[in-house]
């Protein structure tokens, strides 16, 4: 296929899966494709939204793109790009960039950018410290939202206090604050992100030019922090393993036992067991507020919601401690390794001039990177988890009033529809008539649930519309790693589906062969056995506790700078991420070879 003729299917040629039209229509009008969209290039954001989005979960795309675009277009005024446009079809999120190409406009925006972004860079530490305070305040505000209550009569004390506003209004207030907090959180998320990635990319691009054959992961190792928050949850699991041994209760932690069984057994062990449970409680707040996925879907529950992930790691860590191994991350050694790596590459540069430029660029990358690494815990994990759990409370309330069968069904309503359902309930409580929802929502929820299942069975093109000659939008290159080369690879992919090889990002070098354990959800992680090669959709640092027993890792989604890649490197495990199709093409138990240095997975049996 030549470049001239290269094109992905036009958006208008992509049809809504028959029978799911009503579910598709649930998404707001501004997310639907129209004929005018055929002129533009779109790509499927499989990195962040690898599965069909339920009606409610689309709020993540809305809030995130609103905030991302504000930052690039109007707050920091990135010279060459505006924000991200998005559309949804069959539950799949397609996005398109808005590059600025007019030189005069770029020049005008450059002036703005340098007054804004440069101020952030120059005052990074102060603004980042302020950011943490703002973020913690936002988290505290979300935690402080009252429980949802609709008593039969307004409590007497409310009346005697002359409160004047009844409990049903409280529901709307809490809901709107919940939603408002989520949209606000995404602004915080993007306050520094593009600037952080940009500074990192500056150093990255320099390294690629100075050392054309350097691997992405080596550059990542030069920049990545050693004491990032994202390592902390796994460190807490190690700490709990140590405490279990010290308290003499380690025998309770056996592979295959559920957390509930283990905790019940510990209760019966008296003081030592209770001490361990208290240790668990301190670890849980806040460090177990980490999601098993990237936090973009309501069903990416946190360790706090489902303890099976951290508990899955405990037997292995306990065995290591009893074998006399230290589970401490050798912080000092890791830091001096990083310093040495930076120094060694510096020495290889061709001139003193280049060395000085290198020092400037890595200095800036180190300055910004704590944010790039740290924000995820607060935003995508802790806050997102609070948010979806609050929505779940509304789900439970509405389910109690017969709007639908299960609290999880609430996620099949858009956030507009959810507000309508809440107002329906408020009205019913106020006027004594039964709510209308129970007659309205169950069929709709059932149809949408079926539609999600149907959409998940259909693959979707990686991109739509005419292929641009160059991808000159730094936001797209930076956040999604999409280049002209990757588009060409996608265009080719259609022709070699029969191959025995899968390609992805070389995340952590080394070659390993072994049986694949294809894990589609966190409930299945109990199946992972020592020596297996983990094959999953998203690798995530929250999965770190099981990295100790696997021989390698393969994922559908993720880049070489993903935290999963960083954790794999730290464990010294070969890993290939971002293969696109690993969980659908690799069978459970199939022998595979992972070449983490080249980013290739080979199917052997």
């Amino acid at each position, binding site marked *: 296929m030549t470049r001239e003729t290269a094109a992905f299917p036009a958006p208008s040629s992509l049809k809504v899966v028959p029978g799911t039209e009503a579910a598709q229509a649930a998404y707001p009008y501004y997310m639907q494709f129209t004929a005018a969209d055929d002129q533009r290039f779109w790509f499927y954001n499989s990195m962040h939204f690898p599965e069909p989005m339920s009606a409610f979960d689309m709020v993540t795309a809305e809030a995130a793109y609103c905030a991302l675009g504000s930052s690039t277009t109007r707050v920091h005024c*990135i*010279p*060459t790009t505006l924000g991200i446009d998005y559309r949804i079809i069959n539950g799949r999120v397609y996005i398109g960039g808005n590059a600025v190409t007019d030189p005069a406009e*770029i*020049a005008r*925006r*450059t*002036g703005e*950018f*340098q007054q804004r*972004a*440069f101020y952030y*860079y*120059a005052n990074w530490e102060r603004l980042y410290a302020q950011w943490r305070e703002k973020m913690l305040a936002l988290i505290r505000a979300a935690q402080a939202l009252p429980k949802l209550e609709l008593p039969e009569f307004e409590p007497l004390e409310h009346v005697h206090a002359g409160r004047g506003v009844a409990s049903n209004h409280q529901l709307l207030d809490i809901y709107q604050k919940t939603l408002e907090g989520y949209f606000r959180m995404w602004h915080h998320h993007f306050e520094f992100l593009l*600037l952080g990635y*940009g*500074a990192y*990319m*500056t150093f990255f*691009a*320099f390294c690629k*030019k*100075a*050392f*054309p*054959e*350097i*691997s992405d992961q*080596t550059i990542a190792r030069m920049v990545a922090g050693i004491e990032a928050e994202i390592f902390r949850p796994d460190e807490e699991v190690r700490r709990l393993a140590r405490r279990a041994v010290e308290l003499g209760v380690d025998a309770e932690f056996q592979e295959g036992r559920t957390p509930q069984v283990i905790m019940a057994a510990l209760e019966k062990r008296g003081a030592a067991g209770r001490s361990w449970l208290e240790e668990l409680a301190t670890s849980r707040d806040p460090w177990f507020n980490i999601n098993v996925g990237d936090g973009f879907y309501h069903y990416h529950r946190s360790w706090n919601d489902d303890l099976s992930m951290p508990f899955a790691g405990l037997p292995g860590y306990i065995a290591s401690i009893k074998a006399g191994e230290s589970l401490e991350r050798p912080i000092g050694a890791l830091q001096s390794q990083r310093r040495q*790596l930076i120094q*060694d*590459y510096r020495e*290889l*540069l*061709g*001139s003193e*001039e*280049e060395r*000085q*430029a*290198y*020092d*400037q*660029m890595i*200095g*800036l990358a180190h300055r910004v990177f704590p944010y790039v690494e740290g924000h995820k815990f607060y935003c995508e994990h802790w806050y997102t988890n609070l948010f979806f759990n609050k929505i779940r409370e509304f789900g439970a309330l509405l389910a109690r009033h017969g709007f639908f069968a299960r609290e999880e069904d609430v996620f099949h309503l858009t956030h507009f529809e959810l507000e309508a359902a809440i107002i329906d309930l408020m009205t019913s409580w106020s006027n004594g008539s039964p709510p209308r929802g129970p007659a309205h929502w169950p069929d709709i929820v059932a149809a949408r649930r079926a539609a999600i299942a149907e959409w998940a069975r259909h693959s979707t093109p990686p991109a739509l519309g005419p292929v641009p000659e160059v991808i000159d939008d*730094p936001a797209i290159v*930076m956040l999604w790693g999409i280049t002209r080369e990757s588009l060409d690879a996608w265009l080719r992919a259609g022709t070699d589906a029969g191959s025995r090889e899968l390609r992805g990002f070389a995340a952590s*070098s080394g070659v390993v062969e072994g049986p694949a354990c294809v894990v589609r959800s966190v409930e299945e992680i109990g199946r992972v056995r020592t020596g297996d090669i983990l094959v999953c959709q998203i690798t995530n640092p929250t999965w770190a506790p099981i990295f100790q027993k696997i021989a390698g890792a393969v994922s559908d989604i993720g880049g070489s700078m993903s935290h999963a890649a960083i954790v794999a490197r730290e464990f010294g495990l070969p890993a290939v991420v971002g293969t696109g199709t690993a969980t659908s093409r690799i069978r459970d138990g199939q022998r595979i070879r992972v070449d983490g*240095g*080249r980013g290739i997975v080979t199917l052997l049996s």
Partner: protein
Amino acid sequence: MGSAFVSMVAAVSSRSSPEHCVSALTYIAWFDAIGLGDRPQVGGKAASLGELTRAGIRVPPGYVVRTAAFERFLAALERVAPVRAAVAALRCDDLEAITACSRALRRRMQEAALPQELTLDLAAAHERLLGAHPDQPVAVRSSATCEDAAEASFAGLQDTYLWVRGLAATLERVRSCWASLYSVESISYRLQHGFPEEQVAMAVVVQSMVDARTSGVMFTRSPTTGDRSVVTVEGAWGVGSAVVGGEVTPDRWVLGKITGEISVRDISDKHIQHVAAAAGGVEAVAVEDERRRVPCLSDEELQELRALARRIERHYGRAQDIEWAIDRASGAILLLQSRPETVWAAKDAAPVATPQQDPLMHVMSIFGKPQCR
């Protein structure tokens, strides 16, 4: 002839250390006594081997027959009939005359007796090198005194003789190296470039022969991209002449110089290898089928080569092209030669980036066109 030499050098060989030999032998220098600064007296190849030996890098032991030996030999020839003047008198476009002169001079060089003090020194050095095993093979290699770039053009100066056994054969090969200065190609080259004859001299390296299981080359800068952060290793079974001569496609690896990460493993079909021939020298033999597509280096050996490459590059302070071999019996890696890399060094022009007054300006390479604030 061998026994006669032994009696002649009996006095010399009783000396206790190579250092003594060096101070005593006018025409010989040991590797550990020379460095890059000795190039005019020992030639580039020997100077480099000496430099590596002194840096503690394992090089097959050996000595160099200094240019002074060549001068002494030439002086003896000149007393019989002119040599340098005969060449200087030639016209560069008169191929017929050059050919005739070359033939005559080379015959004289092969036939004339060696001055006795030369023979004595060489015999002493040879005995010192081989000790109780005088028939152990050696490699005899020319070591030219001219600059690297020009060196390659003196095709005749690149002579290397492998698996040379015994003093007599060694002396013959030393003469052959000297005589190669008077090959038609060498003479023509000098005439064309106006190279003054009185400056023409040659040293000769005599070195223990490595019976190589595997040998090859490595580059401390990528030959394809000029990247300084990788080491490219090429190797094949047997002696390196098969790789250098292009008779076999070598296996090829690319390693991160700092990280050791192996990013490329190209294992080729190595159908032949060069091994010692019964009559001296090397011969090409077929590689057994089951070894043809087997990597000729283990990962441990690759990492050892990488460490060696880094050490040598640091020692010289610039990128190097390195020849190495792995001894069949001991498995030890030995260095045969190290030359400065020239192709990419010549291409280095504009720096990848220059320091900015305001370091923040660097981000404009990502976010937009750089402009003044």
